[in-house]
């Protein structure tokens, strides 16, 4: 394996817009909101940015094709800008572009920005859209909850859980995230819920109920990255560095080969192990102190805890119910409220996750600040359980 990028790149600044039903804001305005916070945090001028990576998931309801919308919105100085799209993992993909550019030495300072405007569709839930000419001809017309509900049935069948126990654990995931989100002024949903509400909510796609689903929001988040040396020379202290950045993409094995039983995310297992190797982490359960994972649905978070080796395989239900991933648990998960409370503006979510870990490591997380956080893991997932893209990034104090 290559030596990796551990500690070769640090975060100079980050920004995140308020997430929510931003009826009044265009995608450009959301980008500027995140960027202004970010560039002030970085204490640089816009003209110091060498290159940018722009993440946007859905062309039709967002900014359209190409990287130009970012360059125009931020009045970037004719620098190279690349548009990236990798389904719901798009945000981390933008970050990966910027980080690799700096790690390679091609750029001193690079920008990653993600934005999505989901609330212009005229209806609730993620937009209905094409999956490509051929897939559209035979794929079921599945919604995102419909895709991930199957993870629940596959997981339950594999580990022989009863429906009620699994549903209670799924409810706990959401109750915990809502409790965290209630302390976050940037979250879309800032209200606590009860387990009864979650369990009894109407089904969206059995066994996924309303409160098992993340919100649907508008939002933008961004990061400016550079080398540790340059960050220091700019007077930056308490540097947060990138320890690992890995991506695994399904090759059709899960969807068409019998080796996958539908009970887990193969890409998450592969990408996280690569990330642990890159970061030099041998005992994730002990070394990772906080996680922001892709909780598009409560079941996804539960299964992800196992796939990240933070819970024992098949024991996720028990570990969730024991509170291991609550704010005061062993490894707090979604301390900012997660996708559950932020919603999931596709291009922005991956960067929003990193933003929270960045704030926590800087001691700037306000009412939800964890004591002594060390390594934060971000898990950003695109696609469906049977065909997907998984990004894992790990950030921590620069040594």
């Amino acid at each position, binding site marked *: 394996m290559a030596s990796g990028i551990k500690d070769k790149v640090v975060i100079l600044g980050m920004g995140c817009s308020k997430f929510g039903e931003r009826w009044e804001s265009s995608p450009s305005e959301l980008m500027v909101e995140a960027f202004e916070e970010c560039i002030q945090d970085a204490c640089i001028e816009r003209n110091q940015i060498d290159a940018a990576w722009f993440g946007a998931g859905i062309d039709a309801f967002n900014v359209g094709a190409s990287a130009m919308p970012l360059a125009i919105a931020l009045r970037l100085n004719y620098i190279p800008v690349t548009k990236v799209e990798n389904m719901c993992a798009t945000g981390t993909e933008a970050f990966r572009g910027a980080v690799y550019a700096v790690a390679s030495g091609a750029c001193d300072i690079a920008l990653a920005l993600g934005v999505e405007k989901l609330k212009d569709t005229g209806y609730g839930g993620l937009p209905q859209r094409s999956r490509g*000419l051929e897939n559209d001809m035979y794929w*079921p017309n*599945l919604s995102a909850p419909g895709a991930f509900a199957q993870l629940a049935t*596959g997981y339950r069948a594999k580990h022989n859980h009863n429906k009620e126990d699994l549903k209670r654990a799924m409810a706990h995931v959401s109750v915990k995230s809502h409790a965290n989100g209630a302390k976050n002024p940037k979250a879309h949903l800032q209200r606590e819920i009860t387990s009864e509400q979650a369990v009894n909510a109407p089904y969206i*796609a059995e066994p996924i109920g309303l409160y098992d689903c993340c919100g649907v929001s508008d939002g933008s988040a961004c990061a400016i990255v550079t080398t540790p040396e340059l960050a220091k020379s700019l007077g930056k202290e308490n540097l947060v560095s990138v320890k690992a950045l890995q991506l695994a993409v399904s090759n059709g094995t899960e969807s068409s080969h019998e080796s996958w039983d539908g009970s887990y995310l193969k890409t998450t297992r592969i990408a996280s192990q690569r990330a642990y190797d890159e970061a030099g982490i041998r005992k994730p359960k002990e070394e990772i102190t906080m996680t922001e994972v892709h909780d598009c649905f409560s079941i996804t978070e539960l299964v992800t805890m196992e796939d990240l080796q933070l819970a024992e395989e098949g024991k996720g239900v028990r570990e969730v119910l024991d509170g291991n991933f609550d704010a005061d648990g062993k490894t707090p998960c979604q301390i900012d409220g997660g996708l559950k409370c932020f919603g999931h503006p596709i291009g922005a979510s991956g960067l929003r996750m990193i933003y929270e870990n960045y704030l926590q490591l800087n001691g700037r997380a306000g009412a939800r600040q964890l004591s002594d956080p060390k390594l934060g893991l971000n898990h950003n997932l695109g696609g469906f359980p*049977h065909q997907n893209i998984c990004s894992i990034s790990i950030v921590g104090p620069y040594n």
Partner: protein
Amino acid sequence: MIGISAHSVYIPRARLSKKTIAEANSWFDANLNSLAKGERAICNWDEDTITMAVEAAKNCLASRNAPSIKSLYLASTTFPFTDRQNSVVVGEALNLESSIRAMDIGASQRAATSSLVSLLESGTKGDALLVSSEHRRSKAGSRSEMLWGDASGALLMSHRNVIAECVAIETLSVDFVDHYRGEESDFDYDWEERWIRDEGYLKTIPLAVEKLIKRANISVEQIKHFILPSDQIRTPGAVAKSIGIAQEAIVDNQIASVGVAGAAQPIVLLSKVLEVAGPGEYILLLGFGQGCDAVLFKTTKEIVQYKPSMGVEKAIANRREETNYNKFLSFNSLIEKDIGKRGEVDKQTYLSGYNRRKDLLTGFIGGKCRVCGTVQIPREKYCVNPECNALDSQDDYCFSDKLGTVATWTADRLTFDWNPPAYFGMVQFDGGGKIMMDFTEVEEGKIDTGSRVSVHFRVRQFDSVRGFRKYFWKAIIKD
């Protein structure tokens, strides 16, 4: 001469109680109450003339070992496509050879009997498949809605294993306009029932039958089964009486259980008779419309050994009660339903892309790797087995006749579906291969991981803007 070697039917599982039709409409026409007995077969939203034809033909072919089909006739007055050979779609769904002679025959209630006559007189050497299928449309609250039903029937015609041979044929072509459906209308327009009986059935059929009997050199008393497809309840009796055929010979039109299936009705009823008939029995099959076809069959000794894989009795018993009249109206586009914004997404079919994937989409063909033996669907250039990944190594492998098991599933209430929730999930096939696919006709609470499924050719999407419809295979939970 070629004869009937096998037969089968397909009757949609959903049965609409006629009481619900009457309850919804008798405020306008109180006469409907007198017809509100029993139920009728109705297509699910994803069934049409083509899908029912595939089912009936599949059932028919399953009852005989490897027939070598050289021609396929599809008879109907409700073809989904007016210019795209519907029988060719059926043939490809059945994975028949592309060298078959395929033909659509329509425009009359005797489309199926005329096809049959044509096949019998064609002198063809190979096996032929005659399928008739009808997805009937009628105006809401009409008598027709009460009397008609959707169904399909198929006959395998062959020189081998003949269970019924043709004795004589007679045809009359008379432009008697009892009803019609013009180019510009969606529905039939008909004339008074009594006039049709007296001036139509009673003047045409006895004439043809008299000639037929003479030609066959038998007496009318020898006719054991008298099939006169009609939505007029008493007319077959009146016609039989006028000819001198015993009332016991009259084959019931199944108005109270299935409904009269238009051009498919003669074949459905013939199948019903062939299932119970003994050897050496005469069957008189009639088709009425712009004249009539009269075909006299005599069963052979072979009939004793033959059992259809889906006979009428079994098909009628395989039912699910539907009491929601609004759902029926919606499925048949008889009301303009608000389908929500998710239903508005454009559904254009890119015909060149469709054509590239036709083996998968219509034939449900995947691949079997010659190198490692892995069965897979869809078939891509490289084998899916991570230990193999061989290039261009797969032979055709047909999934349409395979059974499978539900590995994952859900009932999706967010996505658009004509009959929500949308059920879909991963199906693991016996003998290998798996794919995420739609489930259709799922009854709530009757699906779970481990449920057994069979697969069926169904409509996947309607493109109402361009008048196209896509088909694909869906899984149905086996009882």
